[in-house]
């Protein structure tokens, strides 16, 4: 079977699920960020695949450039926040950062 749009979509769905699993099952904020990067990459694969096999020409590639830029900005800000959390809580466990709760 020739590789087509479906293969890319299947791969991207699998990568997305792995990203969701990584994001939800981790107890370390940096590992949660890794899961988010996986999810963004899965979305990008979809954009590129539709750009290749559909008739949207380079539109998909343009969108994925913007996704990559947003991902970079997000990683920088999120890591700054994680460093601050570490400074204040002496831990990067997102389940322990709940001082607003009571």
């Amino acid at each position, binding site marked *: 079977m020739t590789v087509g749009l479906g293969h890319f979509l299947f791969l991207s769905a699998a990568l997305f699920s792995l990203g969701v699993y990584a994001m939800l099952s981790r107890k370390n904020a940096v590992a949660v960020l890794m899961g988010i990067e996986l999810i963004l990459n899965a979305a990008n694969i979809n954009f590129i695949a539709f750009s290749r096999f559909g008739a949207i*020409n380079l539109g998909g590639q343009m969108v994925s450039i913007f996704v990559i830029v947003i991902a970079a900005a997000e990683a920088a800000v999120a890591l700054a926040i994680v460093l601050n959390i570490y400074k204040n809580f002496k831990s990067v466990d997102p389940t322990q950062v709940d001082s607003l709760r009571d």
Partner: protein
Amino acid sequence: MYDIIFYIFAAVTLGGGFITATSKRLVYAAFGLLFAFFGVAGLYVMANADFLAVTQIMVYVGGILILLIFGIMLTNRVSQADVTMSGGTKAVTGLLSLGIFAILMMAYFGTGSEKTLKGADGKSKTVSTWASYKSAPWSGSPYNKDVFNEVLSKPYGAPSEAKTKEGSYGTSSEIGVLMLTDYLMPFEIISVVILVALIGAAMIARKEPTPEEEQLAEARG
């Protein structure tokens, strides 16, 4: 040949993603992420997106991954506690992500279909088509079904081959032109977003000056 290379890149991507999602050690997870990023870059090449592949390697591997590894090193203590949730949470999360995968697959198999066509040059090509599908999910929606059919039923390999001018290589020049014409507004907005993120990250992550340091700074003027 194309297929074999695709499957290799797919295996690298999914293997890296799996290590990222399940490894007990954070540094191993970061290395898994490295493989996943490289695999995705390879997939971009397979889909005629050469500029995106290079961007992927430069931004993700050269930037974001380094940032993440810095984050791991700056926040890890020697006696690091377990990095994954307890067994019950893990099971629920695994079920949830499997459910998401199943829903995505149902959406894929439920809405489109693929068929193999014989091209004019005798090669068989896989074409995704929605035209053969009787009731599209948006049949009651305001979207124009024909547009979607046209988008998804166009034959194999249309984009870059059709648009690339003779004597030019790859998509970089077209992306550059598009960036300053059709996508000028998002381009400008995203540059402001990047600037704000830069200032914000530096602002959040900087050290609070101690009182003595503040006095020193005041004395210096």
